């Protein structure tokens, strides 16, 4: 094999599994290290830089970083990355003077943003410091979108939400509340330099079965949650059925309990392994004695004298092969009584306010055609991001798309190519100095993941908005931060220094290093000291070594970044270096010349 090209930032980025897994590339190990040092405000700012809403995401993020976490491959649970984010948010000091400065003198460009959800807010966050004039049009009386009126307050308290929205709105964003945009044409006619559509995927899917429209007691999940959030609905019947088993269903069933339901059943069509809800949301619901019933396919709403009596379901049996359903069979029918039904089977895009003759292409499901890099629609100057662009996802994706759209809007307003984008950059800095004192803590801690404590089942239902998760205490935090393997402290190899003494190979606790004759990939894999179990992880292969012409091979898969190889190496051929990845944002396009280099170093600390 040829020497692995480690100059491409992707190589070391992939090694930092969590950061690679995060759509916004949050520098997770860096902020965990800062928390370990008690620098909560710094940790918060590292987060805010990429994910904008650390307090919110520290509670409700979909956390794609956690299944990716290297720690999870060591036979254990991943680091509680999301919970630690909340620790930073909960314990930070005032950050007002650390927010980007908004220039007094505007640049003369006006941007309209439709919807005040996380996508639009991110765009405003990125553009305001560059001197843009941003106006957000929001149909509701408050900002936040689904975060505000769909994610229940017992998961995400209103104060936390408001604080982080304020950081953005207070930059001087003009927010027109109670202002539903009814016509994009009219908006375009107002002469904005660019328009960003961040209106989400607002339409809950219907379940058109017999009886659907013969009663008042069947609700669309997201609309129902919204009515609860705004205080329009304050109670529900004793027996409630939730149809669907995604995250919306989890919020609906738990909210029902808080509105007085005694028995709540979540009805799933398929077996558990096909549930869409995140594992932790299921767990939290089941902790509250929610019953989840599998293999029941809805058939009919049963109405007697205009009153909902219950529903009939077909009982299903499936043949499952290789994780997929290959055949299904109906084994019978059952009636389940209830007072109310909440439908939580998905969301769709809907753009009744976008005229079809504006050059904005929408397909038959009303999904707009959006460029995956620039987030521009088929009409120049109109951009989409968040759930409105590619259908319902989650907050962190909406944020990342907001960052990208902000770059495009800036480039568009400056008459520059949208497709020419700055590459991510990588900095490596040696951590040899202070390896045992201050530079980082690299003793492997075998402790198991700390468990989040919850408000007791007795008191949790007293108030609709009582937050269930208590956050980590100091002791839990101290333990959990040490579980992080510091994947950003990279093992960097200097081929010409190696004298092939084998010291690193012998000391490596996971046997992920091998010195052997070079060969083709498949052949090399056979000769490694430990088998490669995760084909997706990079394999590092050095140049021919000086003394024997063999090569150093490292399987990045199982490296725990303990630093023993570097400590054992007599010639510093292995060096532990901190990788510092930069992902350009709109601000990086604004200042000075680029020459393919990102100026964002100036913004970062560390």
């Amino acid at each position, binding site marked *: 094999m040829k020497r692995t090209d480690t100059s491409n930032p992707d190589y070391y980025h992939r090694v930092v599994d969590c950061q690679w897994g995060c759509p916004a590339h949050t520098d997770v190990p860096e902020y965990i290290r800062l928390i370990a040092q008690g620098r909560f405000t710094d940790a918060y700012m590292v987060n805010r830089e990429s994910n904008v809403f650390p307090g919110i995401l520290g509670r409700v993020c979909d956390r794609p970083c956690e299944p990716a976490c290297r720690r999870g491959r060591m036979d254990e649970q991943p680091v509680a990355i999301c919970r630690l984010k909340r620790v930073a948010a909960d314990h930070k000091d005032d950050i007002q003077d650390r927010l980007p400065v908004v220039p007094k003198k505007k640049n003369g460009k006006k941007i309209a943003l439709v919807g005040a959800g996380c996508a639009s807010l991110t765009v405003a966050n990125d553009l305001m410091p560059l001197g843009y004039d941003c106006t957000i049009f929001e149909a509701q009386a408050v900002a936040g979108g689904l975060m505000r009126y769909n994610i229940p307050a017992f998961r995400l308290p209103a104060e936390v939400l408001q604080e982080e929205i304020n950081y953005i709105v207070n930059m001087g964003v003009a927010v027109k509340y109670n202002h539903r945009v009814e016509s994009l044409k009219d908006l375009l006619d107002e002469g904005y330099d660019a328009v960003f559509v961040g209106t989400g995927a607002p339409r809950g899917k219907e379940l058109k079965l017999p009886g659907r429209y013969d009663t008042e007691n069947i609700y669309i999940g997201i609309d129902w949650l919204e009515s609860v959030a705004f205080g329009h609905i304050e109670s529900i019947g004793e027996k409630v059925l939730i149809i669907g088993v995604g995250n919306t269903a989890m919020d609906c069933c738990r909210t029902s309990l808080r509105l007085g339901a005694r028995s709540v059943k979540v009805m799933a069509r398929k077996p558990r392994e096909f549930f869409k809800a995140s594992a932790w949301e299921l767990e939290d619901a089941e902790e509250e004695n929610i019953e989840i019933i599998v293999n029941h396919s809805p058939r009919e709403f049963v109405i007697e004298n205009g009153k909902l009596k219950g529903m009939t379901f077909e009982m299903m049996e499936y043949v499952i092969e290789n994780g997929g359903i290959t055949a299904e069979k109906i084994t019978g029918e059952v009636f389940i009584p209830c007072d109310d039904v909440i439908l939580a089977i998905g969301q769709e895009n809907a753009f009744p306010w976008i005229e079809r003759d504006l050059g904005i292409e929408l397909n038959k499901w009303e999904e707009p055609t959006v460029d995956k890099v620039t987030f521009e629609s088929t009409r120049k100057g109109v951009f989409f991001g968040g759930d409105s662009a590619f259908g319902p996802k989650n907050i962190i994706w909406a944020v990342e798309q907001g960052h990208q759209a902000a770059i495009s809007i800036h480039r568009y307003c400056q008459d520059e190519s949208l497709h020419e984008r700055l590459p991510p950059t990588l900095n490596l800095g040696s951590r040899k100095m202070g390896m045992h004192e201050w530079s980082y803590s690299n*003793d492997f801690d075998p402790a198991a993941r700390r468990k989040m404590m919850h408000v007791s089942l007795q008191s949790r239902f007293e108030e609709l908005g009582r937050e269930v998760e208590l956050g980590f205490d100091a002791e839990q935090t101290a333990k959990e931060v040490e579980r992080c393997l510091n994947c950003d402290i990279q093992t960097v190899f200097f081929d010409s220094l190696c*004298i092939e003494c084998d*010291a690193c190979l012998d000391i490596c*606790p996971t046997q992920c290093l091998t010195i052997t004759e070079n060969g083709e990939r498949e052949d090399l894999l056979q000769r490694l000291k430990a088998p490669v179990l995760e084909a997706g992880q990079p394999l590092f292969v050095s140049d021919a070594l000086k003394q024997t012409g063999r090569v150093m091979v490292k399987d990045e898969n199982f490296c725990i970044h303990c630093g*023993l190889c570097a400590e054992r190496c*007599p010639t510093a051929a292995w060096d532990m270096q901190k990788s510092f990845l930069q992902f350009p944002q709109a601000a990086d396009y604004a200042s000075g010349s680029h020459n393919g280099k990102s100026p964002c170093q100036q913004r970062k600390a560390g």
Partner: protein
Amino acid sequence: MTYIAKPKIDLPGQKRNVLGLLQRDYEGSMSTLCAGCGHDSITAALVQALWELSIAPEKLIKLSGIGCSSKTPAYFVKGAHGFNSVHGRMPSVATGAHAGNRDLICIGVSGDGDSLSIGFGQFGHAIRRNLNMLYLIENNGVYGLTKGQFSASADPGSTAKKGAPNLMQSINPVATAIAMGASFVARSFSGDREQLVELIKAGIAHPGCALLDVISPCVTFNDHEGSTKSYAYTRLHKHQATAADFVPAAGEITAQYAEGEVISVKLHDGSSIVLKKADSDFDPTKRSSALGYLEKHRDLGEIPTGLLFIDEDWPEMHAIYGTAAKPLNAFTFEELNPGREALEKLQREMR
């Protein structure tokens, strides 16, 4: 010196030996030697060999003298017996230990200073007695522990770190051992793991004194240009005279060899050593051939490695002395002290 503790991590798919032990169960405490020391590689080879042989830790005794090399026993098989003796006296202590319990597998680790300078006499007598042990010399040409003075194995003309040449002749442990009548003599290099592991296994199986001289660069005091015991010099000049494959008793010789190239030596416990020779004029079962071969390659400036001499049939210490088949420590007090009557009877017989 390593400050970071080596974590114990259980990974999917890790292998266990016949005793159900992991390779890491054959490790010892964390090495305090210099980073990159050849001795640590030898430690790793010992760990691998002992694990592969599935030797129960309590069946093993590790002995040493003084020196960086003599610290090695602390770094492998934590659960074994051990004795770190005085400088150059490892063979006496090993003799005593093995006399007391002949069932123990005995590994002595020494240095070139420990065995060829202060302990030269002891070294010779362990060989003469054919003490059943693996006698491993970690040979770096210097006294590492006392900061790099030339040892007795330093080659004439090779230079110290600051440039001073060595003007004395060197003692070659391999040639000396053969000349003194050793029954198993081999040489290896700390940087040649494959060869080293096989030779360690063969040496342990050999019923007698198995001398294994391992070139083991002192990365701190003897790895410079001008050294003849550096990583680079050894790699450039070593010549593998034989490739040894150790085949355990239950194993089967599967490899195919051309005739004349290969000798198979059957050991008493049923295992065998298959030797593949590089040169047809060399017969490692003949003392004269072995010594001649060593001299010839010294002229060529080469360092022959591999199994260089073997005589399976020479009796080991217990056979020579005709001692009891049972280890001494397995006898009862009454057996060991048969009483005044028995003593008097013995004395009468001797009058």
